[in-house]
């Protein structure tokens, strides 16, 4: 029993950090919100469980595969150098197998649940691992667009599972996530600019300038709020929730403009955190609408 316990602890230490739990849970919430936005009954337990499990597995799988592929640059960047693949605690082959197993089970489960839903999940995984990480991340700063598209897939997939087809609301929700991604990732690339330079990963701050990057963040924040606004209208959010979304959107916009007017590390990181909270709140509002 003791041996099993220590094995479990060791496995958790080796594999759990590969999943990036916060990011995975945030994307999972977008998927659940997409499903609930179709006003599907939450007590439809088998479907909700299937959605949760397939999304959790495929998102975790793609994150592990990303980390496996990026282990060389992760080792160079101080921020990521303590990840288990960088320190050698987890062997690359172990991570690759772990990532593949999670991805295959996740996508297979999704395809069984609903073929269209499964195809969207697969597309998200493909865009994230192959197009974004393997093909473009080390070549162009614009790779984040593909990262954004894959980030929008869980919410679209959830919506598709609920409605049975791709509709404009699902696409707009995915666009909202796509436009939100720059606010999230670019603020990160400003904060850890030296890390990315060290690893020779092209980012907007290194390719263009900090000010251009901040301008892009401000513009994409506006576009994200507009997309979520349109989607929330399509979803049929109550006026009360709409007002709350307007308030939260205004906060995001003001912070983005403030970051443009008087840039500082504190404001940049504040924007990064607020953007995450904004996304979480927007998705929870869509989720609650389903009740």
């Amino acid at each position, binding site marked *: 029993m003791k041996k099993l316990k220590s094995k479990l602890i060791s496995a958790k230490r080796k594999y759990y950090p590969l999943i990036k739990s916060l990011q995975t849970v945030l994307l999972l919430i977008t998927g659940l919100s997409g499903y609930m936005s179709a006003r599907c009954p939450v007590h439809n337990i088998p479907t909700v469980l299937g959605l949760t499990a397939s999304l959790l597995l495929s998102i975790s799988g793609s994150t592990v595969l990303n980390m496996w592929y990026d282990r060389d640059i992760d080792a160079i960047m101080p921020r990521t150098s303590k990840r288990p693949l960088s320190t050698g605690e987890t062997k690359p082959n172990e991570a690759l197998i772990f990532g593949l197993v999670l991805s295959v089970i996740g996508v297979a489960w999704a395809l069984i649940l609903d073929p269209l839903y499964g195809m969207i999940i697969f597309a998200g995984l493909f865009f994230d691992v192959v197009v974004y990480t393997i093909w473009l991340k080390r070549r162009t700063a614009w790779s984040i667009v593909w990262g954004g598209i894959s980030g929008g897939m869980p919410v679209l997939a959830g919506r598709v599972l609920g409605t049975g087809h791709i509709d404009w609301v699902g696409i707009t929700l995915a666009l909202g996530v796509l436009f939100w991604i720059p606010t999230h990732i670019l603020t990160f690339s400003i904060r850890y600019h030296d890390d990315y330079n060290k690893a020779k990963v092209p980012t907007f701050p290194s390719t263009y300038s900090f000010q251009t990057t901040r301008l892009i963040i401000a513009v994409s924040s506006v576009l994200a709020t507009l997309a979520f606004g349109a989607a929330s209208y399509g979803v049929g959010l109550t006026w*009360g929730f709409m*007002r709350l979304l*307007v*308030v939260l959107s205004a*906060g995001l916009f003001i912070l983005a403009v403030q970051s443009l007017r*008087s840039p500082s590390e504190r404001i940049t990181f*504040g924007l990064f955190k*607020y953007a995450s909270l904004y996304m979480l709140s927007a998705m929870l509002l869509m989720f609650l609408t389903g009740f």
Partner: protein
Amino acid sequence: MRKISVLDRILLLATVLMAAYQISYGLNGLNFLPTWSYTIGFGVLLVAGLLLIILGFEGLESQIVVIVSTLIPLTISLGLITEHLPQFSTIYILFVFLGFTSVAVTRYTAEGKTATIVLAVTHGIAGILITFLPVVLSIRGYVSPGYILVGVGGALIGLGGLLLAFLKAGRPILPRDTILSVLPGLLLLMTASYLAGFMYK
């Protein structure tokens, strides 16, 4: 400057959630102007709470904080006027516009004393309205006695606003750290009073 503690963050989070509840559920059935006036007031409170949680008390250093926080008493008092005394709506909208613009302009252009006087007058008028209008309405029987709690919220926001305004003007009424240590609790009490007052209208 005093660092933000876990307890401060919990109190601020409770404030944020209450403001979110008020915006989402507490304004149903009102007309356009009061709805959006209250939404702006509670919205500023909500976003300010979130930013304090994220950035800590250092977030209060910007001049923009004084300007934006003026919106809280101005818009909540505007909500009360447009809801209960609509005949004074136009003139009060004018006051809100002039008050807000004056605070914004004097923050950047006028000397400290002028800017403080403008801020105190604007906050003062809005604060008096929020404090006493619910009391008067309640005594006259237009609303239930519980509505007096909105007035309590008004008194608290007046107190908080003045403490912050004088702190920002460089003439703190209380030591800076004392003000910062009571601020999260004050914001929570204020929001809770508003919430309860509106609920028992």
